[in-house]
């Protein structure tokens, strides 16, 4: 058992007592935080890094505001956080409202309209609502969907003036045009079917499906896209079909289809070009997100290459990839994975550039600056609640992240003063105590600790393996004895009963 004792000694020597830490903290902040880094990373078996090193890796040349902004954010300041570049930053800080126009500029196609409508529905602000509806209306007028037009004008309800009222004539023209086109397409398709040329049948179905999609009949669109499957000859066709199906399924909310077709497309024997690859990964990640498999979703988003660029704006913007990937990773990865896959990930860094808050928040979490990390999260929250895919997962992800932060905070210490911890997590001692109690009693979360309610200290508790083994062994023995006795009695009973039955028979 030598190694056991040795390991025990090592662990003991790595623990810091809180009072000692306070003394050291006043003298050598950098050393101490480096120490804490060392302890946290010892368990991940990596070499010790100092705080400055980890900071440098997170900061990239393109956004020099990182370091200063972090320092200035030490207090409770909520200045607007617009990056110096002219790229539209998604989500402003603090009390400022989201810039609807900038947000909508990130997307094209039907998803733009859908997102604007969602924002209009969910936000509480009248001005923002009208803005969103106005933009949605403009967008719809460019397209050919008369149902959506009716819907939006009903929602506007005349508040924006006569230009945004129901344009019946336009709607009628569109409908008539649609009918004509539909007939034409169907006739063409029938013609192709009689000719039995695979390629033209496929094109015919495709055109029909595109038509349905433009007019908002998503169910029919999906059906027709799926029908083209039988006529796909090259893998290029297959990929095109998969991508179209994915697009329609996402809008319909059928995420099973999305993951099926994404994996189908990835399995084609031909080498995919990088853009398609990224698109498929995004789609798969989105499907996992919606089915609450956050770890897998995070992995998929992190694998998305920067080639995605603006190629997939009819479904997802690169800012979204950063946000979804970052949050899911924070909520579900452990420290090693977080370091390897997120912080050290060069590809993903490009995405994180677009949303500097998420980058800062991940770095803060890794460097144990929980107060500022949680502050960033709170700032992002109102905008995330308006996101069409993320809104119902925001609460879960946030609670997960908070729990992970608490566990990580207490991990290196034998004892933690609850007042300091409450300060770090921006809550009061009573609330913190309740949270800790819930975490300890919940067996899923491995917080092995006990609370000293009198002195308000949290003590780590490490299970004594030897005692536990004895207890378990004795318990098993007793249970075995009881069960075997019962078995013997029951066997006897059954035997007697069968003898009786046999005796009764003549």
């Amino acid at each position, binding site marked *: 058992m030598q190694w056991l004792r040795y390991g025990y000694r090592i662990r003991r020597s790595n623990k810091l007592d809180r009072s000692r830490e306070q003394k050291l903290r006043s003298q050598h902040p950098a050393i101490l935080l480096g120490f804490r880094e060392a302890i946290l990373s010892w368990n991940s078996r990596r070499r010790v890094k100092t705080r400055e090193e980890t900071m440098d890796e997170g900061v990239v040349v393109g956004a020099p505001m990182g370091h200063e902004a972090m320092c200035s954010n030490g207090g409770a300041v909520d200045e607007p956080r617009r990056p110096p570049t002219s790229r539209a930053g998604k989500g402003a800080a603090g009390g400022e409202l989201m810039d609807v126009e900038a947000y909508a500029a990130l997307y094209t196609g039907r998803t733009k309209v859908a997102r604007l409508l969602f924002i209009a529905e969910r936000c509480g602000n009248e001005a923002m609502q009208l803005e969103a509806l106005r933009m949605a209306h403009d967008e719809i007028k460019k397209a050919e969907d008369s149902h959506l037009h009716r819907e939006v004008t009903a929602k506007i309800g005349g508040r924006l003036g006569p230009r945004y009222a129901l344009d019946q004539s336009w709607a009628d023209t569109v409908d008539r045009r649609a009918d004509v086109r539909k007939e034409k397409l169907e006739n063409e398709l029938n013609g192709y079917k009689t000719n039995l040329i695979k390629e033209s049948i496929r094109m015919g179905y495709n055109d029909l499906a595109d038509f349905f999609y433009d007019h908002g009949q998503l169910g029919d669109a999906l059906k027709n896209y799926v029908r083209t499957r039988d006529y796909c000859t090259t893998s290029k066709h297959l990929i095109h079909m998969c991508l179209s199906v994915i697009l329609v399924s996402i809008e319909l909310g059928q995420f099973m289809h999305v993951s099926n077709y994404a994996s189908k497309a990835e399995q084609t024997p031909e080498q995919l070009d990088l853009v398609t690859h990224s698109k498929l990964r995004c789609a798969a990640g989105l499907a996992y997100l919606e089915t609450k498999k956050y770890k897998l979703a995070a992995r998929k988003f992190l694998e998305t290459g920067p080639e995605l660029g603006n190629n997939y704006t009819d479904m997802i913007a690169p800012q979204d990839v950063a946000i979804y990937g970052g949050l899911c990773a924070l909520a579900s990865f452990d420290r090693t994975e977080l370091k390897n896959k997120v912080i050290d990930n060069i590809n993903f860094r490009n995405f994180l550039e677009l949303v500097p808050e998420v980058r800062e928040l991940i770095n803060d979490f890794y460097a144990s600056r929980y107060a500022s990390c949680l502050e960033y999260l709170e700032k992002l929250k109102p905008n995330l609640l308006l996101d069409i895919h993320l809104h119902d997962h925001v609460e879960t992800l946030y609670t997960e992240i908070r729990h992970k932060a608490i566990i990580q905070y207490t991990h290196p210490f034998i004892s933690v003063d609850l007042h300091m911890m409450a300060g770090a997590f921006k809550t009061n001692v009573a609330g913190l105590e309740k949270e800790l*109690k819930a975490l*300890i*009693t919940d067996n899923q979360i491995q917080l092995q600790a*006990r*609370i*000293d*309610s*009198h*002195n308000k200290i949290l*003590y780590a508790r490490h299970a004594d393996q*030897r*005692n536990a083994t*004895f207890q378990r*062994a*004795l318990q098993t*023995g*007793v249970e*075995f*004895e*009881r069960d*075997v*006795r*019962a*078995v*013997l*009695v*029951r*066997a*006897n*009973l*059954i*035997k*007697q*009963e*069968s003898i*009786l039955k*046999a005796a009764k028979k003549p």
Partner: protein
Amino acid sequence: MESVEAVVAHIQALSGSHEEVADLHSLLKQSEGALRSRAARLGPFLHQLDPSAHTLGYLFLLEAYSSRPISRELDEKILPFIVGFINSCSAEQIRLAPEKFISVCKSLKDQVMQLQVPIRGITPLRTAIRKLQTSSEQLTTLHSDYLLLCLLAKFYKAGLSILDDDIFEVDQPRDHFLYCYYGGMINIGLKRFRKALGCLHNVVTAPMDALIVIAVEAYKKYILVSLILNGQVPPFPKYTSSTAQRNLKRHTQPYIDLADCYATGTFSELEACIQTNLEKFQSDSNVGLVKQVLSSLYKCNIQRLTQTYLTLSLQDIANASQLKTPNDAEMHVLQMIQDAEISASINQKDGMVSFHEDPEQYKICGMIEPIDSLIQRLMELSKKLSSLDEQISCDLAHLTRIGKERPRLD
């Protein structure tokens, strides 16, 4: 038809060796009818026979004598006969006619119950059981009667000596139910809840073709005792008969509601639930147990607190387990410390309770004893189990059944 005198003469003559006793036995069986018809007059003849030497004959006569409907003044007379007989009879001769012996003892039990002095029947019955049993692991019909008398006399400790024997052989499956049920009740009376749970568990999981009322009653008590002990009711194990699984829950609905209320953990809800079902509990005479369930709710809550906290103020304990004042909390904690259910210390100056880890370190020599004896017992049990397994595999009925099924599998 022989006259009684002739029978008596035979008895006296033929009670020597084994073969003679066997002859006597067949003779007696033939003259049973005669004896019964003259039952009333058998009293004086009993004096002529010596119970220890002429046990078999005495037994037949006694059985005939006591089997007729008895009036009160005659009870008094018969009782000492029976008691004297039981005390001095010889065990091998009894085993030749066990049913007769059992019926004699049953009539003893009826008489003491009628006379409302169950305590008089306890010692004789215990001797009777010991004499009737071929081994201490055998269950006889008398066991349940004996336990019933102990219960009625509230003389629980007497039942303990019989209960502590492990039973492995059962002659009549019917006896088993009553025995386990009464055993459970005696253990509850002695507050040995773990053993009680074991007994009641046996009743509930015994093989049953048709639903037995005893099992229903036993299940009700089982729910209550498992709530007191563990705070939850375990689900039916796999080997419970399907009849039991389907029907027991239907007949015990108020208790299941009680268990659900208990799981939520609030005191007021539990009280309300008990109030609504009070008449049903009273009709089943389970009110005492139900009250114990109520008080055990506090214990459950406090024990959960020991897992989370190192020290906790009495006020917080009172809040967390819905007690009214910190003084109540202190009383409960004190009680639990005394009962060794938790290990803690109360600091009255600050009003704080510190919970300690389980002090058992398993390091002292005293630990070796229990572990060793447990291992020995388990080894014996395993041997028994494997021998039982061998027996069943070689059993004719079993083999024919397997043989029949095999062509179907092929």
